[in-house]
């Protein structure tokens, strides 16, 4: 009976998370685009829902909510579903959509996506070789094999992200790193950009006119294609088309220049906005935080280097150590075990919330950065 109540609570929360993931996908990630394949949205929401359920189960475990056996059952079910999605569905669909985009392989895309998935599985399996995972208790086709590999990849990724965040965070928050950008700089750069565009236009006008006269005279400009085409174009070529290829090369160089200038100008505008933002109260507050964060990040990097160089492994977690220090040096009476567990729990909760929020924000930024067509 209690199992049914617990299950219904779990399933309700799962549906809530699924709905949240669905809305996030629709409103944030795909704000300007139309969803063609609903499969992607469904898989995203399902993965999000089951991941959040895992967090939820950990919290329930600490708080001792719900029946212990039903928690265990849901935990196992959760793990199985997530592993299924992570190892089977997501790589397969990624391979499938990549293959669908390549025109050559379009016809046999199912076959090629299966091949891609098998390659992925091979490397995934190879990953576990250096680690002592295989033991007589578990056998080879068990859940432990998958979890251990997924765990290794996951922890490495988290470490990479954390390291990147440690370096990027002070750079973003502190205004010390902001170059000084004046309006005159921006104007000068824009002027150069427009001048480059004008040069491109004048060359393209020449090309268009040349093509038109050639067309009227009956010559046809063939771009040299293939091996023999290149050899032929070395010896014989109509003067018109020779001119065209020369001008085309100049145009290509100018277009590259215009792209660079455009990106630089956009960069200057962004820096100018950051400078304006840093002058507001919010900006000043973040700048202040930035100083603290950078000190913390530098300390973290330093400690990590020392740990690696001297091969140290931490024995107790920082919270317990902090409480021990407090108890020993300040003489305050603490029930160490009780408080350390609750404080750790609160910290775990904070870490979970901020990491979900950080993940969603990073996803949005990453998506906007790469989405162009």
């Amino acid at each position, binding site marked *: 009976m209690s199992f049914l109540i617990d299950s219904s609570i779990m399933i309700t929360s799962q549906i809530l998370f699924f709905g949240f993931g669905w809305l996030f996908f629709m409103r944030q990630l795909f704000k*300007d685009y139309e969803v063609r394949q609903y499969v992607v949205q469904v898989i995203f929401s399902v993965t999000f829902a089951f991941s959040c359920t895992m967090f939820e189960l950990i919290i329930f475990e600490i708080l001792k909510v719900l029946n212990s056996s039903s928690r265990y059952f849901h935990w196992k079910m959760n793990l199985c579903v997530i592993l299924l999605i992570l190892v089977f569905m997501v790589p397969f669909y990624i391979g499938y959509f990549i293959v669908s985009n390549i025109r050559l392989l379009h016809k046999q895309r199912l076959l090629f996506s299966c091949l891609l998935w098998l390659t992925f599985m091979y490397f995934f399996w190879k990953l576990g070789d250096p680690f002592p995972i295989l033991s007589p208790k578990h056998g080879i086709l068990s859940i432990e094999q998958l979890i251990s590999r997924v765990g290794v990849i996951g922890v490495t990724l988290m470490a990479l992200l954390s390291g990147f965040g440690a370096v990027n965070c002070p750079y973003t928050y502190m205004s010390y790193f902001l170059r000084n950008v004046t309006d005159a700089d921006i*104007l000068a750069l824009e002027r150069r950009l427009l001048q480059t565009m004008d040069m491109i*236009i004048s060359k393209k006008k020449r*090309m*268009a006119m040349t093509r038109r006269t050639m067309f009227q005279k009956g010559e046809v400009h063939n771009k040299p294609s293939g091996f023999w085409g290149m050899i032929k174009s070395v010896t014989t070529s109509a003067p018109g088309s020779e001119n065209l290829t020369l001008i085309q090369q100049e145009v290509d160089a100018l277009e590259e220049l215009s*792209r660079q200038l*455009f990106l630089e*100008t956009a960069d200057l*505008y962004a820096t100018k906005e950051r400078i304006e933002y840093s002058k507001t109260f919010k900006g000043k507050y973040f700048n202040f935080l930035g100083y603290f964060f950078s000190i913390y990040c530098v300390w973290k990097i330093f400690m990590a280097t020392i740990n690696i160089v001297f091969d140290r492994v931490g024995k107790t977690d920082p919270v317990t150590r902090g409480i021990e220090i407090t108890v020993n040096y300040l003489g305050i009476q603490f029930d160490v075990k009780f408080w350390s567990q609750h404080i750790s729990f609160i910290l775990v909760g904070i870490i979970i919330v901020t990491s979900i929020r950080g993940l969603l924000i990073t996803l949005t930024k990453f998506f906007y950065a790469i989405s*162009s067509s």
Partner: protein
Amino acid sequence: KMASLDRVKVLVLGDSGVGKSSLVHLLCQNQVLGNPSWTVGCSVDVRVHDYKEGTPEEKTYYIELWDVGGSVGSASSVKSTRAVFYNSVNGIILVHDLTNKKSSQNLYRWSLEALNRDLVPTGVLVTNGDYDREQFADNQIPLLVIGTKLDQIHETKRHEVLTRTAFLAEDFNAEEINLDCTNPRYLAAGSSNAVKLSRFFDKVIEKRYFLREGNQIPGFPDRKRFGGGTLKSLHY
């Protein structure tokens, strides 16, 4: 001989991936673009157009097609950078993808971005993107709406899609053309699409050269930042 031809500037606007680069390539070089890649910043191409073709007043003009890349939801720094291309525009081609409704809806925001930028002197866009028919009523710049990827619309859905786009073109008070940029036959000489295109370019040239006794197109003054005259001196 080349410099004596006058210039006309037409913007090509639309969401990422609708096919603006393919369209511009088709219009200017009469060839299909073999390897489309995404546009950073702005890419320009030139089309040689015979104004009033077949009549004694026939004259050849260069039409510059400025293909501005990006999405309508870009960061404001990118939007401010893009705004430099919207100077002294003589015509706007709005491109949308027939298979993607959002790209059609975003055309309203695109046109507002290009048409409204001169109303705010600080150069920062303040529009909230709301579509206001009045702004289009007294708009002097000729617009043309082009829908791409027509070949990907199934026969049964064609009528519904074309009705929707007809309403869209009406909202902009513009002509519309629907085609597939990978097939030159849609713009073959003599086809109704080619006639519409020719009429549009003629209208742009007329507004630029033949209707401007007062020397300014009302509602669209040139940007004052470079001190009025100097910007014009950058163009010939």
